[in-house]
């Protein structure tokens, strides 16, 4: 076993464990510890961490969970994630959570927050209404007030009121996490044969359920190992994956795309972990700093309002240029309103710039990958041999 495979195996175990063994392990290490769950896409983990709680990303059961009870809560034309989360909760797998946060990703997740309050009255449940007015006077002031309320409430839930210093320390920890994630993405972008997306993705998933300090340790060990055990460069095309920010694709789909000859050099998987494009300052009021960084430096995604009508049309060209990519694969979950409503605009913008694109839909429990293999394989060939036409 190599250092690299040790880390990947650890991450894979975290990924497969629908009973959240690592979270239970952390909770049992010390009495009185508590955990707060959050749904995709963005939740201020610094606030949760500052209150002594473990932030736990809840992404459903993927392709490992049969949905029985969850289907009773949603119509057939709703995406898979919420029914899968309900299934996890109804089976008792999320009983360890003391709080649950529902960011305003879409109306389905908003409605789930209401259901949660009825289903689990003993849990602290909060709908996080992310501000769409991107100015400090309105959106900034609103978000700052929301964060202060959340900080106070979670302090009461955990029994540990966060001080200003606690929050600054947590901001510092998550700054390191974000730097490490960006470094992993940089290496993957520059030398994708060193960091297969499958492995990077597993690390990102592990980061959603383990303490940030553990992720920093494992992520740094991985980064060191990839340089010690360089993989083989292949003649693949380079693609950006867009639209997979909420309900996550099955691991098999990510593997299929890369096996078919496409290096994924940028993506929006689990984008909440790097939504803030700038460091949160730790001088001054940390709550205000957190709110202000969100308002000023949140990356452009489908979950946030874009006031400039032309903004999203140029987004793909910017991302493709930044990643040195050859094309875009629009991969969105079936029935995902934010991703699918943005897709025509993003795609039109990309194609207007001559960027080759393909598009498909998936579910977190998609089990057949042949059609994706065929699409990605022919896309890669078209890019390599015909410039994408």
């Amino acid at each position, binding site marked *: 076993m190599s250092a690299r495979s040790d880390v990947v195996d650890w991450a894979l175990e975290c990924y497969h464990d629908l009973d959240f063994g690592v979270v239970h392990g952390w909770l049992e290490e010390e009495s009185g510890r508590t955990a707060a769950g959050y749904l995709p896409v963005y939740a201020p983990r610094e606030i949760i961490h500052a209150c002594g709680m473990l932030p736990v990303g809840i992404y459903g059961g993927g392709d490992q969970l049969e949905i029985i009870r969850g289907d009773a809560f949603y119509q057939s034309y709703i995406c898979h994630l919420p029914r899968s989360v309900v299934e996890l909760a109804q089976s008792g797998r999320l009983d360890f959570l003391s709080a649950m946060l529902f960011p305003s990703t879409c109306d389905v997740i908003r409605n789930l927050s209401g259901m949660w309050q009825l289903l689990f009255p003993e849990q602290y449940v909060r709908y996080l209404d992310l501000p769409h007015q991107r100015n400090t006077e309105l959106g900034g002031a609103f978000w700052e007030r929301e964060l202060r309320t959340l900080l106070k409430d979670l302090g009461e839930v955990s029994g540990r009121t966060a001080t200003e210093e606690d929050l600054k320390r947590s901001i510092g920890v998550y700054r390191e996490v974000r730097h490490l994630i960006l470094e992993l993405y940089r290496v993957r972008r520059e030398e994708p*044969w060193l960091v297969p997306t499958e492995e990077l993705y597993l690390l990102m998933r592990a980061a959603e359920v383990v303490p940030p300090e553990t992720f920093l340790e494992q992520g740094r060990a991985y980064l060191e190992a990839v340089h010690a055990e*360089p*993989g*083989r*460069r*292949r*003649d*693949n095309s380079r693609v950006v994956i867009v639209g997979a920010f909420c309900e996550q694709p099955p691991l098999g789909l990510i593997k299929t795309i890369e*096996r*078919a*000859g496409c290096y994924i050099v940028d993506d929006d998987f689990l984008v909440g972990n790097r939504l803030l494009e700038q460091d949160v300052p730790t001088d001054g009021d940390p709550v205000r700093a957190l709110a202000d960084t969100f308002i000023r430096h949140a990356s452009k995604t489908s979950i946030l309002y874009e006031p400039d009508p032309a903004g999203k049309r140029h987004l793909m060209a910017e991302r493709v240029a930044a990643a040195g990519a050859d094309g875009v694969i629009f991969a969105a979950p079936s029935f995902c309103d934010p991703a699918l409503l943005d897709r025509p605009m993003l795609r039109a913008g990309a194609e207007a710039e001559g960027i080759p694109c393909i598009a498909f839909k998936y579910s977190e429990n998609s089990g057949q990958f042949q059609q994706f293999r*065929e699409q990605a*394989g*022919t896309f*890669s*060939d078209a890019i*390599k*041999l*015909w410039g994408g036409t």
Partner: protein
Amino acid sequence: MTITAGIDVGSGAVKAVVISADGEDHRILSSTASRIRRRDIRSVVEEVFTTAAAGAEIETIDYVATTGEGEDVPFATGHFYGMTTHARGGLFLEPEARAVLDVGALHSRAVLMNEQGKVLSYKMTSQCASGSGQFLENIARYLGVSQAEIGELSLAADDPEKVSSICAVLAETDVINMVSRGISTENILRGIHESMALRFARLLRSIGASGAVLVTGGLASDAGLLAAIQDALDEDDRVAGTLRVAGHPLSIFAGAIGAAIWGAFRYEKTDLGGAAWKATTPTTQASSSAT
């Protein structure tokens, strides 16, 4: 001059070629194929590649290209999708061809291409195995004939017996009934060929093929099947006289040849950091030379 290898990992056999490329001048230096049977695919790939490399008597290979199920071949430089490689390989073997019919062990597909080998359209057989080489191989085994004999026996048929073209299970039952009824092996095989040919004719029609069609894949050397396909096309009023079915002694290598040619194209276009394989380098260590 660029030296490249193409490895086509099929579901029934692995095929490899080594070619030299000088601009648009491509020459096959060696070719090797081996049935997988129940062996570990990785060892079959290594064996076939090593044999092809040795047969080519070259020192280095600049680009190792895989196709088919060969995505995970560890020493490959790049992978190309099966349709892309069969189209290019088909064009190399039959420059007049504007369509290929790839008949493999598990699937069959018709591919329409232009004069540069660019895929314009394609259609595959559905999941049912009765349009595949594996089905024909099973039937041959029941009848006690070798694969090499199938074509000649089929051509000698005088009263072909109709076989179900819908389902492999039903077709196998048909064959058992025919044997018990005393139908000759020649007529059974021709009946199966005709049944498969009807499917292939539909595929070719659906992609709008015209002119020469090269049959590639594992059944490309089956003269009985080629004759049955030509007959099926000639008897179809919609395409009669517009399609000429062609074969080639190296048709089974079309995918590997196409991969090798595209590999040469990519090698000349892209800086991949040197040779992919050297004569003294075992395939398992070939990776170090290209990183």
